[in-house]
């Protein structure tokens, strides 16, 4: 069983190491919509890929739709800069949705994504190790 577990552990560690080697590629797959400046909205994924097929809907403070546009091939929507936008919702049609509001401070996580990935994998590795040694101990006691 020791050889079996080492295979699994090696597999999981190899996957994580792969991402450590290319940290710039380690990004969760979220869509982000942002008001770059009055008159310009950008929709992108958090790996930097521009969204070329998202629908953008802008709302005022009362929730009334101001305009609804599709992004261009670079992920931008251009509108009349005199319009005051309170909230923007972007949807790419394949299950991703992002929201921007002028009342919410820019979202920023202080914990690097590599650390969060390591936390998740560590939790699962600890569970695996706990049950492996528990099963091993029980088998030894039975013998």
């Amino acid at each position, binding site marked *: 069983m020791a050889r079996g577990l080492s*295979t699994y552990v090696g597999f999981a560690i190899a996957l994580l190491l792969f991402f450590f080697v290319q940290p710039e590629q380690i990004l969760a797959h979220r869509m982000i919509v942002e008001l770059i400046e009055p008159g310009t909205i950008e929709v992108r994924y958090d790996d930097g890929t521009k969204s*070329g097929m998202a629908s953008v809907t802008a709302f005022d403070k009362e929730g009334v739709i101001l305009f609804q546009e599709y992004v261009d091939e670079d992920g931008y929507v251009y509108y009349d800069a005199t319009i005051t936008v309170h909230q923007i919702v972007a949807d790419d*049609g394949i*299950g991703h949705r992002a929201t921007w509001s002028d009342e919410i401070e820019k979202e920023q996580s202080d914990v690097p994504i590599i650390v969060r*990935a390591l936390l998740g994998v560590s939790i*699962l590795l600890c569970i695996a190790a706990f049950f492996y040694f528990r099963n091993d101990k029980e088998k030894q006691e039975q013998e």
Partner: protein
Amino acid sequence: MHVADSVLSVSIAIGTTIAAGGLVTYALKGIKEEEVPKISLLTGAFFVSSLLNIPIGPTSVHPLFGGFLGLVIGRRAPLGIFIGLILQATLFQHGGLSTLGANTLLMSIPALFVYWLASLFPNIASFTKGFLAGFLAVCGGVILLVFLLLFSDHRYGEGAFSVMNILLFAYLPLALLEGLLTGFSVKYLYAVRPSLFNKEG
């Protein structure tokens, strides 16, 4: 393929949550402690698979790993997928908590389908088995996603937003890629650790 919060209608979200609860219960039934290490480690692999982004056209996709999970942990795949999705939603904000049930179904049902198919055809060559597992798991997930989106909002079936674009444009290349990766992985593991594919429970 993760569906974000607010994409699905409330009724669809509730229905899929109930169905996913049943699926996870089925996956938990009869589980033995000896299976937990294998399930945990493969859940870890599923968890990190969403970190790999593949830009395709106007969007980007990521590997799903459902076919591999279905082959290796069989009926326990929904459990691993469910736990992996919770971690992805809480640590990466990838996918939503209200759509956790829908995301669980999107990936678990194809994984279970692969498990069932593999039991029907046990003598297929390992690479072929792995390729079909990876390919069919992605295609199955996309088909389910199409139905979920169409049932939630009619916009997803109209014009440039038509969900048919999803299948051809974004996920077919991923299905082929994941088929190849799963095929090579399964072939290698069959050679060095064939006991990995012996199902328990």
